[in-house]
């Protein structure tokens, strides 16, 4: 049996003992599923071969997935969905945080009112939106008709474009509160003396926001935008509950396509291939995003932005 002979060895052993439980958990929760997904992606695993018997098929699944006639449009749609949704969340989050940070009466109440979309379970919120978007019984359609915008019922989820943008609106509604709160927390950390000095120098509100607030909270904005991008890219429940990826694939993103292939059609090998592709695409996107922002940070000197 190994017995540590020196104090350094004892320390090393003790350190390993301390991290072992966490490492084991990480292995079972992260490493093993990732490895299994990767392995499955090279097999023809289906419902019948789940308990054994799946055969190695090499790159066949990847060739079929990438060469499929719908794949390019699904990837484009996924990135468009992500950029649009995250962009709106960041802009609305900034506006919301700025308003909530301002010194107005009842600020606490407004801050509390921002929370519900985030607190309410996503499924419940989506069912509410499902009703709002309904053509014959929905609130939005009825308001539009009463206001003379439409001349009859309009089912928002029945048409390709309106279904896509309706899903974006719901995603933004659910995702904005958290972004707002993160930005608000960052804004509250900006030293007050910077604002006071600028105020004394006669700087306008907009100038102070642009030259003090934004640079100071930029690290938070960048981190939040990246996290939000990853969550939005992989956002499943909202689209699934509202449209299940339809009509005619108009709201099918990569994660919906992965679910439909792996779970809906029991093609676990082909589904795992899509999951691996999602990881690769997100990894590449994150790398590009951080590289570009690192370069921008260096050039313009945003605090905390480092490559």
């Amino acid at each position: 049996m190994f017995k540590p002979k020196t104090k350094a060895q004892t320390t090393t052993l003790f350190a390993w003992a301390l991290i072992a439980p966490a490492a084991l958990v990480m292995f079972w929760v992260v490493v093993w599923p990732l490895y299994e997904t990767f392995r499955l992606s090279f097999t023809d695993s289906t419902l019948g071969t789940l308990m054994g018997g799946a055969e190695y098929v090499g790159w066949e699944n990847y060739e079929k997935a990438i060469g499929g006639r719908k794949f390019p449009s699904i990837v484009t749609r996924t990135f468009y969905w992500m950029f649009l949704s995250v962009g709106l969340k960041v802009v609305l989050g900034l506006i919301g945080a700025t308003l909530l940070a301002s010194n107005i009466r009842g600020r606490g109440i407004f801050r509390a009112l921002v929370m519900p979309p985030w607190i309410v379970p996503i499924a419940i919120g989506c069912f509410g939106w499902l009703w709002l978007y309904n053509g014959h019984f929905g609130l939005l359609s009825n308001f539009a008709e009463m206001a003379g915008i439409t001349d009859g019922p309009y089912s928002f989820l029945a048409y390709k474009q309106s279904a896509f943008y309706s899903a974006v609106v719901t995603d933004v509604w659910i995702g904005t509160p958290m972004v707002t709160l993160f930005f608000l927390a960052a804004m509250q950390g900006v030293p007050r003396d910077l604002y006071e000095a600028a105020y004394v120098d006669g700087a306008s509100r907009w100038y102070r926001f642009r030259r003090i607030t934004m640079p100071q909270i930029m690290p938070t904005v960048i981190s939040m935008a990246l996290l939000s991008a990853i969550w939005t890219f992989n956002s499943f429940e909202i689209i699934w509950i509202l449209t299940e990826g339809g009509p005619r694939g108009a709201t099918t993103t990569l994660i919906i396509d992965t679910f439909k292939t792996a779970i809906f059609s029991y093609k676990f090998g082909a589904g795992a291939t899509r999951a691996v592709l999602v990881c690769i695409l997100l990894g590449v996107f994150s790398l590009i995003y951080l590289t570009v922002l690192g370069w921008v940070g260096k050039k313009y000197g945003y605090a905390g932005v480092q490559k």
Partner: protein
Amino acid sequence: MKNIKKAILLAFIGAGLIAPVQAEEVHAIICGGEIRPADQVVFDAFEAKYSGVKVNAEAVPWGTCQDKSMTLAAAGDPVGLAYIGSRTLKQLGRSGLIVPVDISDEMQALYQPGVLATVSDGGQFWGYPHAFSTKALFINCGLVEAAGEACVAPRTWEGLYNMAKAVNDNTSAAGIGLAARDFDNTMHQFLNYLYSNGGTVSNADTGEITFNSPETVETLAFIGKLAGVAQEGPSGYERSQLTQLYNDGQIGMYINGPWGAGQHNDNIAEIVVPVPAGPSGSSGTLLITDSMAVFKGSANEDLAMELAQMMTSGEAQYDLDMSWGLTPILQYEKMRDDVYYSTDYWQTFVEPIGRGGPEPMFEDFKALQAGINGAIQGIILGDGSAADLVAEAAETLAEGL
């Protein structure tokens, strides 16, 4: 201390005694979210026949039921039997998760024409058919007459379209309710029209996809035409939502099963008529069944098989059909003098059985739904010509066969 040891010993003995009793349990998943009283009667009779055997019947809503049965089986913990859509049987059978069932010649002769085709694959039966439905057209006569038309059954698609257009143009309601959401009953609605136009989906004997045909193109084009007189945004609706619109007086007519009358408001004056014939065929219907499938490798496979047989034969099956309001799955007139389906209303659902077509069996049945629903949504949303959309759907179907 002595008492503690005794207690532990007794606990082990007790567990040993309980174990064999637990093994004598037949786990049944019943899709639909409820155990029908007619089925419960069979469970009670089964337990009385096999003392010590417990039927653990678990009602699961349709949305998750089939997936649950399949996932449990794939994970090596199969249920004894499950009441599931027959369209899943081919996939389950070819995956080795269910066992073929034996249906006697006598019983085979009793089934309505076409019913056994919904559970057959590779020359074997993969489930006992347990619930059967055909479809017909429900017409709100109040709306038709308000539109200045006589409320009589349209015999052809042209007659159907003209009636729907009259309602659409002359009342505040839409002419017809059209389901086009990505749901199974959207595909079912289409198949009712397709089978009424002489079309087919696949050749069960050769496995060849026959979907890409002039009859299918004609049917899809007609669906596109109907969308012009249907409720706004058909792609957002499935059949149960059409029932709500029908009850609300917002659509003049729609296709539903025999349970439709029980779901409709009493104040609606309606007629129920066969699905009108297309230009290339005669009035037909889709034959859909749900079945009792017996899973391979459960603790009590033989008991599960017998329970499935008891549930699907004789008086038990008759009670279920009658109490549930289903199209008769067996030709009960060969078994008894009085049958519940002798009225005109029922004949609308029974008479077309011989001209009906089965819900096709596909190994990847989700591909079947995706292919057909994609074509329906495509024609409604103006994504292409009927011919192109049918060709595209046929490709998807070929992948799923």
